[in-house]
């Protein structure tokens, strides 16, 4: 249990570090939202100074950070200058959209990757294995952007899928069933693009983790005891290969979040990605910090989940 407590403490420390890092970066940035305002002849310099004071932008870095951290812990992540609204409500719906997309893509990619990887490893060198490896190689060389644009072009040409957003304009008027159908239709392409980005990495790792285990002396020994093949693969080999795969789970979440930023922008999925991009272009400081920090929260939480799974799956870690 102390292992998990340690991992949790570690995760919290890392998040604190991330918050300091992002916050410091933004404070070092030349110009903020009000710098742009200053250029506007209709707003007097006094007003700008007063506003800066009101938002606490004129205090020293540690003080601003501590104030921000204290309010962040209360759920107040600051104020968006561009949207003229508190950051958290703005972020909350965007973040949940990103999570829906990422988790769905994650589930889809793993559900395909595990059987495919195990199967390729079990038939090492056979034509099916080679085809899988050629497929993953090609998919790995296709940039996310291209996949997303390709799928979007496909949607445009065929008209089978909507070309962006989360819901049709007419969605409000639809019945519940139709609304769900509409939502799913909007979700399919971005999720597919996202899953296609991580799928080749997952398949390759599953395959190589399985190969390592299949070559291990204890699998040879199990074969020597006459354990049937299917049982050998799923009861003996897969749990032993789980360790690197669970670690991969955390890492793949990072890749997925990175990929989703771009895909959200391309496919106009109203997630964190487009919000962050806008915020950067608008120099909307608190939104940038909050969005980046939130992405770190997702990733760190994902890694913590991986730690918990690892704890459950590997007796050697439990014994530590």
């Amino acid at each position, binding site marked *: 249990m102390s292992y998990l407590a340690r991992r949790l403490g570690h995760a919290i420390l890392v998040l604190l570090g991330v918050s300091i890092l992002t916050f410091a970066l933004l404070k070092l940035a030349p110009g903020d939202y009000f710098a742009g305002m200053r250029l506007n002849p209709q707003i007097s310099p006094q007003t700008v100074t007063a506003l800066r004071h009101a938002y606490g932008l004129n205090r020293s870095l540690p003080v601003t950070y501590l104030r921000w951290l204290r309010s962040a812990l209360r759920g107040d992540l600051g104020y968006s200058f561009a949207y003229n609204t508190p950051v958290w409500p703005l972020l909350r719906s965007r973040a949940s959209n990103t999570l829906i997309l990422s988790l769905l893509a994650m589930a889809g990619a793993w559900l395909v990757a595990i059987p495919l990887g195990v199967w390729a490893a079990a038939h090492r060198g056979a034509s099916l294995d080679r085809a899988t490896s050629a497929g993953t190689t090609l998919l790995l060389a296709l940039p996310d952007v291209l996949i997303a644009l390709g799928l979007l072009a496909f949607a445009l040409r065929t008209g089978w899928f909507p070309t962006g957003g989360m819901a049709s304009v007419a969605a409000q008027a639809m019945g519940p069933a139709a609304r769900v159908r509409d939502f799913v239709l909007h979700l399919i392409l971005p999720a597919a693009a996202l899953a296609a980005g991580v799928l080749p990495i997952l398949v390759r790792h599953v395959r190589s983790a399985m190969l390592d285990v299949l070559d291990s002396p204890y699998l040879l020994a199990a074969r020597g005891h006459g*354990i049937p093949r299917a049982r050998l693969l799923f009861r003996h080999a897969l749990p032993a290969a789980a*360790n690197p795969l669970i670690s991969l789970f955390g890492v793949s979440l990072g890749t997925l979040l990175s990929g989703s930023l771009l895909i959200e922008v391309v496919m106009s999925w109203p997630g964190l990605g487009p919000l962050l991009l806008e915020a950067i272009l608008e120099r909307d400081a608190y939104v940038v910090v909050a969005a980046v920090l939130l992405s770190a929260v997702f990733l760190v939480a994902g890694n913590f989940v991986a730690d918990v799974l690892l704890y459950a799956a590997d007796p050697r870690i439990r014994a530590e």
Partner: protein
Amino acid sequence: MDRLLEVRDLRVCYRKGTEPPTHVVDNASFDLAAGETLGIIGESGCGKTSLALALLGLLPRGGFVQCGEVRFKGTNLIELHEADLQRVRGAEISFVHQDAGLALNPVLRVGDQIAEVLIAHRRISFRQASGEARKILAQIGFAGHEQIDRAFPHQLSGGQKQRVAIAQAIACGPALVIADEPVTALDALVQVEIITLLKTLQQHFHLALILITHTPAVLVPIAHRIMVMYAGRIVEQGLAPEVLQAPLHPYTQGLLDSGLDLLPQESPAGPLSSIPGEPPNLAALPAGCAFAPRCSDRMEVCQTREPVESHSGKSRIVRCIKYE
């Protein structure tokens, strides 16, 4: 004596890439009776392990049996399909691997690992198999340890792991157990325990045992017969006392001379006896007798002609030109 295992002219090859296959075991013939212990000795890289793995069709990637037969209770194992072989492995013939630390699955409880073997060969529920596994563990020296079946391999000592591996091997009551260097990785004291355990089991279950080692001393308390391998060939076989006390082949003599004595009072002062040189590369064997370059009794003819097996006495076979 009824023959349990008959191996005839077995040849095992390894193929690497496009190179011609290397013969790691050649022309191997031997018999084993039920309840008999056969020790196989030889330096590393002389084909002992490959021979053992070939008996059960467990050769690693690139290895294959080129010719010969392995008759177990009358069935030729070489001709069996993988699915049929799988029914033999663990149930009729089982294998104890070199290093039990590596041969046990690190993420499964040891009790379950034994139960797995039972489930693979019997129509039996998991619960029954677990109970059985506990009984077997108690039988092989874990009597005092109540929760031992719930342990994971990393929680056990080297000797305990080897015991678990042996428990797996005997779980289904096989007729033959092949143990490949079962004690090499262990401390001297534990080595004694494991060999004693093997001996007890062998007598109790009337097991046939093939014990592979490169330390002849290990065989002294347990082996009925001894087989010596060099460069993929069986160079000498016979009853253990005969081979140990009066080795015929110069290689056997060299091996035994460099190993067995212990007390300084008994051992002569001066240099230790040893076989000069090193075992040859199996991919490029010298012409004639493979041992000739290292042999103290080398004759002219040894470098040109391969020796054939010659029988001396009831069950003594030696492959050396000296005795032809």
